[in-house]
C-alpha cells in the first residue's frame, strides 16, 4: 500500500489545482494494482476496518454498550446564548438510542474501526438545521474517513449550505454516507451526488448491498428487522433507512482499511463493482 500512497500524490506537494503540466503527469499515475475484475475479495476480503475513522452524526452514542465497544471521541453541538453553534465534550451520551444503533451496526461489520460521535440533537430531541450544519462542518474539519448521517432535513434554506459541505467533504476525501428519506419527500443531504445515498432492502445478509441504476438513491443496504443496540444497554429490532445507512458505512470502512488511497469517487466505483447485483453476488 505504501507504493500506492506515494502514487496517489496525497502526501506530496500539491499539484496545480486546475491544470496538469506535462512534467506532472507521472505524479498522478494511478496505482496499477486494480485487478481486471474488481472482486469483494480484492476490495475488502479479510478487512476488519482497522484504523478507519468513522463518525456517527446523530443523537449521540452510548460508548459503553457492549455492541459499540468504546468511542474514540464524543462531542455535542449546542447553541450558545447568541444562537451560535459551539462544540462541547458530550456528557449526555445518546438521547434516543438511534445513534447507538448506527454505531453498533458499523462496529458489527468493521470491528476494528475507530468510531466517534458528533451529537446534533438535544435531550428533548431539540435540534435545528443550524446545529445539523455545524455538526457536519465540524465532522468534515476533523478529517474523518467516513461520516454516517442517518438524518436529513426537509428545510430548503439549509440545502445550499449542506450542498457546499457535502462537496467539500467529497474533495477532502471524507465519504459522507446519508440516509434517503423513507417517504417520498424532498430532504437533504442524501439527494446530492457527492454523497453515498442509501435506502433499504429486505434481506438479512448485512453484506448484501445493491446499486440502484435509478438514482437519486444510489445504494440499498440491509434496513429491515435489524437487531441493534439501543440506549441503556438494550437491544431492539428496528427497520428504516436509518439502519441501512450504517451498513454501507461499515462496508466503506472495510474497503478503506484495505485501500486507504481511494477517493470518494473511486470508493463509490468499488461499491458499484462489488454490489450484490453487479459483481458481488458471485
Amino acid at each position, binding site marked *: 500500500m505504501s507504493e500506492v500512497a506515494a502514487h496517489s500524490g496525497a502526501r506530496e506537494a500539491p499539484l496545480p489545482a486546475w491544470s496538469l503540466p506535462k512534467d506532472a503527469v507521472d505524479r498522478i499515475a494511478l496505482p496499477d494494482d486494480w485487478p481486471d475484475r474488481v472482486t469483494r475479495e480484492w476490495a475488502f476480503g479479510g478487512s476488519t476496518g482497522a484504523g478507519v475513522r468513522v463518525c456517527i452524526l446523530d443523537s449521540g452514542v452510548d460508548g459503553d454498550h457492549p455492541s459499540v465497544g468504546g468511542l474514540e471521541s464524543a462531542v455535542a453541538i449546542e447553541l450558545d446564548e447568541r444562537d451560535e453553534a459551539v462544540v462541547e465534550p458530550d456528557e449526555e451520551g445518546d438521547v*434516543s*438510542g*438511534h445513534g447507538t444503533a448506527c454505531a453498533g451496526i458499523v462496529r458489527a461489520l468493521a470491528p476494528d474501526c475507530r468510531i466517534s460521535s458528533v451529537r446534533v*440533537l438535544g*435531550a*428533548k*430531541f*431539540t*435540534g435545528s438545521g443550524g446545529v445539523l450544519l455545524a455538526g457536519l462542518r465540524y465532522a468534515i474539519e476533523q478529517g474523518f474517513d467516513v461520516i454516517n448521517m442517518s*438524518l*436529513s*432535513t*426537509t*428545510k*430548503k434554506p439549509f440545502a445550499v449550505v449542506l450542498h457546499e459541505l457535502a462537496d467539500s467533504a467529497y474533495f477532502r476525501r471524507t465519504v459522507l454516507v446519508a*440516509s434517503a*428519506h*423513507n*417517504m*417520498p*419527500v424532498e*430532504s437533504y443531504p442524501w439527494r446530492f451526488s457527492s454523497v453515498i445515498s442509501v435506502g*433499504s*432492502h*429486505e434481506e438479512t445478509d448485512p453484506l448484501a448491498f445493491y446499486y440502484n441504476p435509478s438514482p437519486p438513491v444510489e445504494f440499498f443496504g440491509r434496513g*429491515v*428487522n435489524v437487531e441493534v443496540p*439501543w*440506549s*441503556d444497554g*438494550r*437491544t*431492539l*429490532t*428496528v*427497520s*428504516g*433507512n*436509518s439502519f441501512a445507512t450504517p451498513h454501507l458505512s461499515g462496508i466503506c470502512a472495510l474497503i478503506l482499511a484495505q485501500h486507504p488511497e481511494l477517493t470518494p469517487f473511486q470508493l463509490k466505483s468499488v461499491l458499484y463493482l462489488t454490489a450484490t447485483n453487479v459483481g458481488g453476488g458471485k
Partner: protein
Amino acid sequence: MVGSEDSFRALLEAIVEVARSIFGARASSILLLDEETEELVFEAVVGEGEDRLLGTRFPAGTGIAGWVLATRTPLVIEDVQNDPRFARDVAEGTGYVPKGLMAAPLLHDEGALGVLSVLDRPEQTLFSLQEMELLGLFANQAAIAVDLLLKARKAEALLGDEQDDLGVVAKLASAVDALEGERRAAGVRLLDELATTLGARGT
C-alpha cells in the same frame, strides 16, 4: 368556506380505523403537535385506549413519537417493551405497553404537524418494506386531513372571537347572508369591492 371541525375529526378517525384494520394492529392513533405548549395531543385513537386517550397530551420531546416528529422520519421498532422510556408515551394513562410500534411523521410543506402511530401488528408477521410504504401513504393522507383541521380551527377562532378586531368579518358575512334578493346581491357586490380595494382579490 372552511369545513367543520367535526367532519375533519371524523376523517382522522376513519384514517386510523383503516390503518389499524389494514395492518391488523391492536391500536392506531394520530398525534397532533401543539406548538404553543410543545406537546403532542391524541386527536384520533382506535383500539386499545380509545376511550381514555383522546385529548390527552405529553411533552413533544419524549417517546418514539417525539423522535419521529423531531427527525421527520418514520421509525419501526419491535420489542418496545425492552425500552420502557420509549413506551411511556403510549403507556401512560392506559397501562397498555405495546410490543411493537410503527410511526410516521405527518409532513406538510417543510414541517411536521404530528405523528401517525400503529401499535402491535400481529406477532407472526415480520415487518416488510411494503408496510413501510403503506404507512407513508396513510401518513400523507392524515397530514392533508390534519392541515384542513388546523385551518378550520384557525378560521373558526378568528371569526368566532367577538372581542377580536376581525370578529367584524363574521358579523358582516352573517348580515349579508341574512339578506334576500337584490339587497343580498348588492351586499355581496359591496363585500367584493371591499376585498378588491384591500387587495384580497385576484391573488
